[in-house]
């Protein structure tokens, strides 16, 4: 009779315990899986290549920082969606402007509270804006000449030392976010004149929030991720997603990830030619807000060829602007003016620049420039999905058709910045976006006497009368409307007489999965308003 196989008693108990353990693991996995799935649906994932050094509003400057700060803090005014034509109420429910654009009176909302439940007061506004200026950070220069006063709990008066219609726009910048003065002071912050050396609040503000925005900071892991959660004390409507995870990811990976994603997710760096081949199920929101321009040094000792105005005009005439627009993947078409189409003051389509090779050759011949050659530096980077090398090579090729030899010299970003900022470059190229959504920020740096102009050794003495007068007209204008008109004339004058050669525009982009809606790109600086992103359907 065959022996029946029997498991010994002690082994049976081991087997039973093992089976129960496996079952428990499977059950816990299933439960956790369901919980994970629910958490995923409530989490908005934002993929972006991190560019930020701090989340301290007084020191923040880079775009990832702006993205987060705009979700964590509020400023007196703001912009809604992708429309940057007019600032909308933020912490201030209304404001009045004096006729000479020097006095701005803001009335704060009664209901606005910080994340700790305390009310937002005029003293907090005064503290925040004074701290911003006295920290001497990257954005402080824009706020120089503004005096802030808090005559009562709900009123803020900002006085400019010269007419400045941009004050409401400046006060919508993330840098002008309002902090909880008591909390920041308790953690080493100060708004005094010595704030640049005495303020110690940055590390605190990098790890938590002292604002009134729709989100609070749960975790800041530099180089890895930022985790935001809904602010329970937010005075406005609660955001659709109670949790936002901003992940550091290269652009190519963002494209792969979004293509496969079936959860609420957006990507901020799939731009330019990377947009090719995206599945139609993904939504793309973009605005052409970046100008690419070439600069030519006007100092004959640095650039004997480039300092000749005829050379710059010949380069302008030689360029194939439509071809450049194709390389930039720009849906805004070929270049028109230095102010990108996303902003008020951009030139209309009829001002689109055209290639004119015969004119380029004629200009060179008339000036006696035979086989001119020049060195051209550019940062060897990919910016917004565009390899700058391809743009530089296109410029080189177009110029060669007119008989101009451009010797390309790609440089690491830091080396490029050092040479460019040192005023030692003969010719080069760089992208430039507005720091705040008004032409003012471009006019001030690019006109004679501005930071960029100084790098080209271009001064009032060497600038044309048309450039000087259009710049003066623009700066003298006291309303937004007047400035929009003035900046058009300025762009025409710059196109004729400046050492800048506009190459094209590129768009900032937000790509989103079908699960989300309202992920609109904004040229206001913060890329997308995370609190405005909602569930589709």
């Amino acid at each position, binding site marked *: 009779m065959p022996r029946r196989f029997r498991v010994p008693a002690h082994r049976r108990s081991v087997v039973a315990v093992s089976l129960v353990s496996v079952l428990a*693991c499977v059950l*816990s*996995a299933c439960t*956790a*899986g369901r919980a*994970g*799935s629910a*958490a*995923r649906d409530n*989490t908005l*994932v934002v993929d972006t290549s*991190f560019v930020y*050094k*701090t989340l*301290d509003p007084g*020191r923040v*400057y880079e775009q990832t920082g702006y993205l987060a700060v705009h979700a964590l803090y509020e400023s007196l005014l703001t912009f809604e969606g992708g429309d940057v034509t007019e600032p909308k109420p933020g912490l201030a429910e209304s404001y009045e402007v004096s006729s000479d654009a020097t006095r701005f009176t803001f009335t704060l909302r009664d209901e606005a509270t910080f994340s700790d439940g305390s009310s937002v007061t005029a003293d907090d506004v005064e503290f925040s804006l004074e701290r911003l200026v006295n*920290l*001497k*950070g*990257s*954005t*402080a*220069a*824009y706020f*120089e000449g503004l005096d802030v006063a808090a005559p009562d709990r709900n009123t803020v008066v900002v006085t400019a030392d010269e007419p400045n219609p941009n004050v409401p726009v400046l006060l919508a910048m993330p840098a002008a976010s309002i902090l909880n003065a008591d909390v920041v002071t308790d953690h080493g912050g100060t708004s005094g004149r010595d704030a*640049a*050396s005495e303020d110690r609040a*940055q*590390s605190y503000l*990098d790890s938590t929030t002292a604002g009134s925005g729709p989100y609070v900071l749960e*975790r800041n*892991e*530099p*180089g*890895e*991720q930022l*985790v935001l959660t809904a602010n329970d004390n937010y005075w406005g409507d609660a955001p659709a997603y109670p949790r936002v995870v901003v*992940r*550091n*990811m*290269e652009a*190519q*990976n963002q494209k*792969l*990830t979004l*293509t*496969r994603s079936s959860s609420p997710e957006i990507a901020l760096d799939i731009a330019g030619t990377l947009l090719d081949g995206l599945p139609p199920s993904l939504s793309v929101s973009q605005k052409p807000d970046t100008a690419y321009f070439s600069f030519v040094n006007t100092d004959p000792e640095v650039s004997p060829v480039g300092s000749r105005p005829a050379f710059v005009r010949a380069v302008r005439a030689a360029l194939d602007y439509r071809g450049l627009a194709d390389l930039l993947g720009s849906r805004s078409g070929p270049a028109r003016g230095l102010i990108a189409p996303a902003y008020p003051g951009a030139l209309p389509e009829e001002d689109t620049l055209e290639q004119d090779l015969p004119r380029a050759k004629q200009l060179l011949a008339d000036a006696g420039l035979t086989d001119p050659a020049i060195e051209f530096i550019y940062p060897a980077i990919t910016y917004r999905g565009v390899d700058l090398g391809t743009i530089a090579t296109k410029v080189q090729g177009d110029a060669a058709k007119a008989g101009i030899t451009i010797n390309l010299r790609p440089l*690491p*970003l*830091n*080396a490029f*910045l*050092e040479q460019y*900022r040192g005023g030692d470059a003969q010719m080069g190229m760089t992208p430039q976006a507005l*720091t705040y959504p008004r032409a003012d920020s471009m006019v001030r*740096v690019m006109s004679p006497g501005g*930071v*960029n102009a*100084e790098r080209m050794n271009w001064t009032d003495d060497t600038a044309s009368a048309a450039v000087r007068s259009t710049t003066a007209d623009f700066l003298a204008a006291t309303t937004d409307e007047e400035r929009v008109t003035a900046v058009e004339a300025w762009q025409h004058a710059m196109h004729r007489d400046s050492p800048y050669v506009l190459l094209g525009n590129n768009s900032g982009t937000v790509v989103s999965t079908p699960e989300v809606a309202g992920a609109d790109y904004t040229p206001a600086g913060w890329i997308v308003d995370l609190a405005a992103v909602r569930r589709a359907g």
Partner: protein
Amino acid sequence: MTTVDTGAPRRPRVPSFVRYLARRLVIALGLLLGSTVVGFLLVQAVPGDPVAANLSDEALGDPEAVAAFEQRWGLDEPLPVQYLTYLGNLVQGDFGMSQHTGRPVLEDLLDHVPATLEIAVPAFVLSVLLGITIGMFAALRHGKAADQAVRVGSLLGLSTPPFWMSLLVLYLFFFVLGLSPGGGRLSPEFSPPPTVTGLYPVDALLAGEPMVAWDAVQHAALPVLVLTLVTTATLVRFVRSALLEVLRKDYITAAYAKGLPARTVRHRHLLRAGLVQIMTMAGLTFASMLAGTVLIESVFAWPGVGNYAYASASALDRPAILGVTVFVAAAYILINLVVDLLYGLADPRIRLS
């Protein structure tokens, strides 16, 4: 012959291994100090102005803003003063503040090093096991088809750029097959477990969160795979050539000739003789893994030392660059020290020489 007792107390004899250890420690400290000098000078020599790399165009036009930045980061001091201040702080465990994260560099490193260890340690263990096994397999079949196949395979692994291999692996396992959760250390729906070791799988298990641990393992799988493939290719070639050299020795022929089992010859004579060279290579490989594999970490959005070093270099963040330099130098020195000590244990002739 008689011996005369002089009455003088005999100094206790310090064991040779302890003396060997002490000597190596002194050398290691000297090397570490030297690395700070070299690192500091190299960072100064890097083209680029940290002020320009960190301030906006508008702020650069404001002398007060430039002065405030220079004062805040000590850039207004003479170079020797900057170095001595740095060294003094370093001795007290203060690596300085990172300009691009605004946090203490040591804190940043303590965040990033565990991430690197999480992929480096399993990749190292796998690479050593595979490298020795495949290398020995090829050496024992020298000149045969199997040996040729191993050589071609390892050459392929060595000549494939790691970033390209990473992209390929990510594309295949994440995008095409959907077997991997993609980049990062953890899926967005999970929060990192409470920090005990800094290694997510371990900390998640300690916190009783098996799903988080499993998710962390899944995320680590692809970077570990790429690191393993790259490192194994190096080790295979090295082990093969080291063992081929030993195989030509007379004592191996003698061992076979006297009828010892092949397994005994392989493990007791062949592998043991090649061990010193293999340990050297393995040590260097592990140190290079700790130094951070920038491109692999970048492709997999892995927040390790490599990514931190890259971000620091991009921002010309001198304290952070120096912090990474000192960490990497310390890792190399420590691992070399351990390897040296293992030599001493493995071969007494080395510690006595």
